[in-house]
């Protein structure tokens, strides 16, 4: 112990010991990262699968949506990944993709499921930072509000009523929180417009086009 105490007081001991600690920590992180990578990827895949299933009626898709994707370049931003649901016969019967809107505190990411004709089958907020107890009623775990979207499409309600009630639309707002539901309604409407604009591309089944 006394030799250690002597060593500890040497100037060189300090950087060297700190370096060793940092190296060992880095090594531990590399090992842990390698060990957990497949587990984390699998867990995220399962999460995605669960979210995808939530926006479609049960038994709607007979295929594995995660493996049937197409990249569609929209007007702005990076290309969107569109997941396609198929019937048992293999025909595309619906699509799921993510839309996002700017809420009260950062982006709100929403997954929406559409049938072939662009009618909403369901919507789920998958990520947001809205005020707890106020804006977070958009989560399906906290309120049924998000279920109002099912069955809606670009023509029903008419475009002018694709808004919260305060703005003359058909969607409820929350007491004290208008910005959040407004952002969600707008994001979903933009998603429907995106689908309408790219419907042919999304439903095109020839393999060459689908990897665009």
């Amino acid at each position: 112990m006394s030799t250690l105490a002597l060593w500890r007081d040497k100037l060189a001991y300090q950087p060297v010991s700190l370096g060793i600690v940092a190296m060992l920590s880095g090594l531990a992180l590399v090992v842990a990262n390698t060990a957990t990578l497949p587990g984390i990827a699998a867990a995220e895949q399962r999460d995605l699968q669960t979210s995808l299933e939530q926006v479609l009626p049960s038994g709607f898709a007979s295929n594995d949506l995660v493996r049937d994707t197409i990249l569609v370049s929209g007007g702005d931003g990076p290309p969107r990944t569109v997941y396609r649901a198929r019937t048992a016969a293999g025909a595309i019967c619906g699509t799921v993709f993510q839309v996002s809107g700017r809420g009260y505190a950062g982006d709100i990411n929403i997954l929406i499921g559409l049938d072939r004709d662009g009618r909403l089958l369901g919507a789920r907020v998958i990520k947001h930072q809205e005020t707890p107890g106020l804006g977070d009623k958009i989560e399906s775990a906290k309120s049924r509000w998000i279920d109002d979207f099912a069955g809606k499409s670009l023509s029903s309600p008419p475009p002018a009523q694709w808004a919260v009630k305060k703005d003359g639309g058909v969607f409820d707002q929350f007491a004290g929180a208008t910005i959040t539901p407004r952002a969600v309604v707008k994001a979903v409407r933009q998603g429907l417009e995106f689908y309408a604009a790219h419907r042919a591309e999304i439903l095109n089944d020839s393999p060459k086009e689908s990897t665009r």
Partner: protein
Amino acid sequence: MNFREISRNGLWDQNIVLSQILGMCPTMAVTTSGTNGLGMGLATTAVLVCSNMLISSVRAFVSPQVRIPVYIVLIATLVTLVDMSLNAWMHDLYRVLGLFIALIVVNCAVLGRAEAFASRSGVLASALDGLFMGLGFTASLTVIGLIRELIGAGTLFAQASLLLGPAFAFLEIKVLPNYGGMLMMILPPAGFLVLGLLLALRRLFELRAAARTTPATAVPDAVAGCH
């Protein structure tokens, strides 16, 4: 340091929130409900026990001049390891606690215990210290969360079954049905208000106790909070 002293320090005398006023960042940020406070407290307790044991076991090799960076590297590594393994192997728990785990790195109570206790005590004593400090932290956060939740939303332990499993659904109580809620209690300012009230209560309690046992010993000085 005996068991009695360590447990008493952790739970009350040196309580991280109510006496040392440490770890204010998680205290204010996550105590919007009793469940959140409990989750953050339990996650911190686990990290505190591990970090105290780790730092206590390497304390002979750490030179005093570089001890702080060494502790920070060790704690950050530990939290990252916990984060990654939970994400990979206990993903359901991670979905609930994931938010809290990253915040533990900035909880200077962990560094505080490393510096004040683990760096000069045995491994077992340090583990116990981590455990009781963590439990004291958990209790404080849960109480703050419950007060804010009760006034802010009229419920107690809402969504506890998401954190603890369906068996704990009985904890979820809607105390005030048809209660509109008081938004301010859920927003950050109420964190300060409730903490201030609790500190005042504690002080009152201590003054009463000191008045009863005449020559009063000084209340341990609160360490200045860093977050």
